């Protein structure tokens, strides 16, 4: 009886502390998670994948199938896991990647071999869409001509050239290391860099050689030259759609209608259009070649509307995760304040959570059942991140209460729950609230990464801006996120005055 009463009273206090800060975000979360499930198309984090994703969505829409496109969800492994576990229904992929990264084979496979290998995993594959987007090494044209570099073999003579390669290329089985050993390249400088940023860096001379996709629009735009793969190192990268076999037949046939319809020239054009207009849906509509309908279907969302959508989702992510951090963090902090082995374990756990890079934490959660590519995963990661400041500040706030006050509370004959509720938590409230404030600001910042796993928020424009190397788009997400962080800070300064007892503020 005593225990139950103690618990109940703690929760009451938590509710009071949390109510003002998190209720709106909580309500938004509840209301938005009630919508039904359309066919979900995923795409990887680069322009061509976005465009193909939009084309698929449009193709399904034209067949009267409700479809949703989760843009730029990350790399191959994340999308493959999401497809296999049914969190997405289809996504564009390349045969070379399927062989190397998914089926883990070095052989060149025939289309039949691909299909039968994937079939065993419950996944179907369309025929090639029509273009081969292989890897290439690119350089600035004038520099390549000056140095007389035309083929990858020619690079052997120039170990002084600096390489800026994407992280995926550096790690792939058909990527940098086997390439370097085949061509016996031994350059002095190799750095890892984001794909779109790499183009800008190549352009301004930060390095000389970069990996690229042969259909990248930037190759023509920046007047780059793709070096000839004279030893035929790179496998063929035919674009296809992977889809779940469990999909209804009309969905699969809508995807199959895209087979053999996009050649390389057309893909480069679509990519260039997407990068020029920053509008993937519009680029996709070029494919369908009927402008009249496309304006009805794809008349771009207004900026204000987009901003509101991003911001609401952002608040939902940060707010709900903060609510969880508070609900879990304060009781953990109370336990930790009592010291001993339990306290060490709790503080250690919360500390370790914060040392894991946020991106890695997201990537670790995605393959787990229940999580996957979802808002749930983003909220869980943010919740784990927000835990430490609250746990630590609650624990130290309680531990810092002078012994004389602690003993006075005990000597009065208050039960333990009442001591906590009436004396200790109010005295520690300033420290606890400071911890919650830290968590809130961290969450607002870290929530931008949620876009990486398709959870949306203000990270969406940042990510696509990064992808397009477009500063204006990046700022469309970065500025509101910064403003939001400031607003949250200010809100908590106000809360200080409401929640912290007057006697502690004199």
């Amino acid at each position, binding site marked *: 009886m005593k225990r139950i009463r103690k618990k109940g009273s703690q929760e009451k206090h938590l509710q009071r502390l949390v109510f003002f800060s998190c209720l709106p975000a909580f309500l938004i979360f509840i209301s938005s998670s009630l919508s039904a499930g359309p066919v979900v198309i995923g795409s990887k984090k680069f322009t061509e994948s976005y465009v193909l994703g939009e084309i698929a969505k449009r193709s399904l829409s034209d067949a009267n199938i409700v479809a949703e496109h989760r843009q730029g969800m990350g790399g191959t492994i994340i999308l493959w896991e999401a497809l296999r576990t049914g969190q997405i229904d289809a996504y564009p992929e390349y045969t070379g990647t399927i062989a190397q990264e998914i089926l883990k084979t070095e052989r060149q496979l025939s289309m039949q071999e691909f299909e039968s290998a994937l079939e065993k995993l419950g996944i179907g594959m369309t025929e090639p869409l029509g273009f081969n987007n292989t890897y290439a090494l690119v350089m600035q044209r004038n520099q390549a001509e000056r140095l007389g570099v035309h083929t990858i073999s020619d690079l052997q003579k120039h170990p002084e050239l600096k390489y800026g390669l994407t992280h995926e290329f550096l790690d792939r089985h058909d990527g940098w290391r086997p390439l370097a050993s085949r061509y016996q390249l031994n350059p002095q400088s190799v750095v890892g860099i984001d794909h779109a940023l790499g183009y800008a860096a190549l352009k301004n001379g930060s390095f000389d050689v970069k990996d690229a996709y042969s259909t990248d629009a930037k190759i023509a735009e920046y007047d780059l030259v793709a070096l000839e793969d004279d030893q035929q190192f790179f496998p063929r990268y035919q674009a296809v759609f992977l889809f779940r076999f469990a999909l209804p037949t009309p969905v699969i046939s809508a995807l199959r209608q895209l087979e053999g319809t996009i050649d390389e020239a057309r893909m480069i054009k679509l990519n260039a259009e997407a990068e020029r207009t920053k509008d993937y849906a519009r680029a996709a509509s070029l494919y369908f070649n009927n402008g009249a309908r496309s304006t009805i279907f794809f008349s771009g969302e207004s900026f204000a509307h987009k901003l509101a959508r991003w911001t609401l989702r952002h608040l939902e992510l940060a707010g709900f995760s903060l609510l969880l951090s508070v609900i879990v963090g304060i009781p953990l902090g109370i336990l930790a304040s009592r010291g001993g082995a339990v306290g060490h374990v709790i503080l250690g756990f919360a500390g370790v959570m914060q040392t894991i890079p946020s991106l890695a934490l997201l990537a670790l959660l995605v393959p787990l059942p229940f999580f996957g590519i979802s808002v749930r995963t983003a909220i869980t990661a943010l919740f784990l991140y927000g835990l430490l400041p609250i746990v630590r500040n609650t624990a130290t706030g309680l531990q810092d209460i002078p012994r*004389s*006050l602690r*003993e*006075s*509370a*005990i*000597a*009065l*004959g*208050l*039960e333990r729950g*009442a001591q906590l509720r*009436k*004396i200790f938590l*109010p*005295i520690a*409230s300033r420290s606890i609230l400071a911890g919650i404030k830290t968590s809130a600001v961290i969450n607002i910042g870290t929530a931008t990464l949620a876009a990486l796993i398709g959870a949306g928020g203000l990270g969406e424009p940042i990510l696509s801006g990064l992808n397009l190397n477009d500063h204006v788009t990046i700022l469309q997400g970065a500025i509101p996120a910064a403003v939001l962080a400031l607003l949250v800070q200010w809100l908590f300064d106000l809360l200080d005055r409401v929640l912290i*007892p*007057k*006697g*502690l503020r*004199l």
Partner: protein
Amino acid sequence: MSALVQLVEVSKRYRDAPALHPTTLAIERGKTTVLIGPSGCGKSTLLRLIIRLIEPDTGTIDFDGAPVTPDKIDMLRRRIGYVIQEGGLFPHLTARANVLLMARHLGKPDEEMRRRLSELCALTRFPENLLARYPVELSGGQRQRVSLMRALMLSPELLLLDEPLGALDPLVRASLQKDLKEIFSRLRQTVLLVTHDLAEAAYLADEIVLMNEGRIVQRGSIADLRGDPASDFVTEFINAQRSLALV
């Protein structure tokens, strides 16, 4: 009539240092007993044992003729008032809320609480218009008066005071000593007070208990201690304090 508190062979160690050797002591009802001795002599430990902030290693402590079982410890504490050097007032509560904390927690009627509060203000000479202030807004002497009111609020059978005047300047201290003596005798309160100041002890005590190194050295009136010292330490302790007073 039996003693209110009866300690029998009670001892306490902190890590490897004995804080209190096996000690037997009776606290008589209606009297002011003063524990005195140099720092670390075990006088505060004895007080903290009685209100069960710490548990004895050996021995028994009976209260009102009966042992205190673990489930009755909170009940015991509500029958004891406890005042410490810095008052131990809760900074987030006003003077009034500090005094009424336990009464409110126990659901006492408002009217009764109001009456008791003005009674206590009169008794401790605390101005009622300062009740709305927070502890930081009060002087050291005022804080100790509030702390005393809080301790007396539930009309405790025993009042424990641990160096209650130790942090106050001499003038405030003298006036509070006078008030304390008057309050104790008016309430016929059983009091156990810890101090290191012999003059204070002599002024307030019905009986003085002199302690050193975790043991009771002598108990009696100031005249007993002076006239018939139990050991050289007693003489030394009395002389040290007298010479300080002469400087």
